[in-house]
């Protein structure tokens, strides 16, 4: 199954200036005003408490289920200085892609998460993300890849 990663431009933050993991997640949650940013912050932090989603190489994929969500929602932020995300390799995180999924369909969400993780593990893709200086280009970059 081929999936596209659609990140609308308004869900993209190119240069976060947050000073902590929590503040960064609050910023990304703030990109989704229609979805109750406070609740997103709580859900994501609760999941992070069970184990960090910082997968190494400066990438984190915080995620959570959320009830009353019609379809998966993705938002992302870039932090040029890097931030302590409690990642598994202990390194700062520069790229944060947040994934919120509806309360059902276990298998599909896992697949989407796994595909995102595989994509972000490619060094050339991470380099492209860091090189972009425009939100439309960022949205296009994600839309242009076929997730395998």
């Amino acid at each position: 199954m081929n999936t596209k990663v659609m990140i609308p431009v308004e869900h993209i933050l190119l240069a976060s200036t947050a000073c902590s993991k929590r503040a960064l997640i609050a910023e990304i949650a703030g990109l989704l005003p229609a979805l109750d940013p406070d609740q997103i912050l709580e859900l994501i932090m609760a999941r992070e408490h069970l184990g960090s989603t910082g997968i190494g190489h400066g990438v984190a994929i915080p995620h959570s289920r959320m009830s009353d969500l019609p379809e998966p929602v993705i938002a992302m932020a870039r932090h040029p200085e890097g931030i302590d995300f409690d990642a598994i390799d202990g390194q700062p995180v520069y790229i944060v892609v947040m994934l919120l999924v509806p309360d059902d369909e276990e298998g599909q969400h896992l697949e989407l998460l796994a595909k995102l993780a595989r994509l972000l593990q490619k060094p050339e893709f991470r380099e492209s993300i860091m090189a972009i200086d425009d939100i439309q280009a960022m949205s296009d970059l994600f839309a242009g890849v076929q997730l395998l």
Partner: protein
Amino acid sequence: MNVLILGAGEVGFHIAQRLASEGNDVSVIDNDAARLQRVADTMDVQTVLGYASHPTTLAQAGAENAELLIAATTNDETNMLACQVAHSLFKVTTKMARIREADYVNHPKLFGRDELPIDLIISPEHEAAKSIVKRFQVTSAVDAQEFANGKVQLLGMRIPPKGHLAGIALSELHEVVDGLRTYVVAHEHNRLWRVPTPETVLLAGDSIYLAVAGRDVERLLACMGSEEYRGKSSAQRNVLIVGGGHVGYIVAQQLEKLGTSVKLIEYNPMRAEWLAEHLDRTVVIHGDALDRQLLEEESIDTIDDFLALTNDDETNILGSLIAKKYKVGHIVTLVNRAIYSDLMREMGLEITVSPRLTTASAILRHVRKGRIFDLSTLGDGTLEVLEAEALKTSAILNIPLSELQLPENTVIGAIIRGDKVIIPNGDSMVEPNDHVLLITQGTALREVEKLFEVGLEFF
């Protein structure tokens, strides 16, 4: 993790020290410059002088980045208000408040996401009282701690000179206990607490903790064979409580429920009167607990349990020493200040309860990563017990314990699977959603946490 601690008193100080030593970014707020200076001199944390509930003070302390706020000032209202401010203005993820006044705590409707946003209410007096009553129920042991709603107990006891346990190695223990499933999870010899190995030999005078299923406790104590371990049941015991403050009152209340006959000595006449009105069957005596004539009038030599629970450490220690002179079998001493806790054993007082330590454990349990249900200390506090749920995708799952790479000085004392208690051996495996009771040296806690952390694919 960014942590804000409000109040640099005994509890705040202890928690700040603990969290800072584990590499967290800690800020401590207090309005007393001298107390704050003591914190700044002792540990690597940020200190902010000011009123804990004021938005500017909280902002200055970095509330915007904080994941956890621990409101531990001596003022209930400040603590509650600080949680509200931290929630409404700074969206701090987890908020804990120390609340003493039972009148607040008894109204759970006050608290919640849309009410007073406090995730955990901590009452040092309640925690201390709870731990006193808990161990009272197994008075024959020196210490007893319940886990998983009583499905598992850790019994702490001394090895008596002529008991069946003196001189045996742990690998031979099963013969003494008649095949009963039990596991020695902690061992003290010459005042040094360790997690034992199968080769460890128990000597008279050593102390141990045994993990045992709640339903097997009586049988286990019976197997130990020594008279010392055969206590009277709660209802037959005569208890003398000294001090009718928060802790004394709660303990007396709980003991009444167990059917124990309780006498309580209170120094303050007004408080004594109040206690007499509010307690049902407890005999309240107005007087000085250090008055030997009074103690003899109350026939202290026939008392089974002496609980020194005033809010004055010195009175508690002296009272306990007097009780010891009258050969009271079971003496519990409440001690607030850290400096005394270290001295207690030197003075021959074995059982101390420290509101500071019990409260700190209650808080730290919620700081740990993963789904932790209980965290408390054993012995002199160097060993910790952790009850955690093994969630799907965590590293601890589906590996026989003999092959599982546990951190050093760490053992799994019990696995709780639904209603079943498994006292494990090398072939046992942890399955998803099991509760695991694990004993470790405090320094290895971070590594232990990793065993329970979920993988990326956990939703």
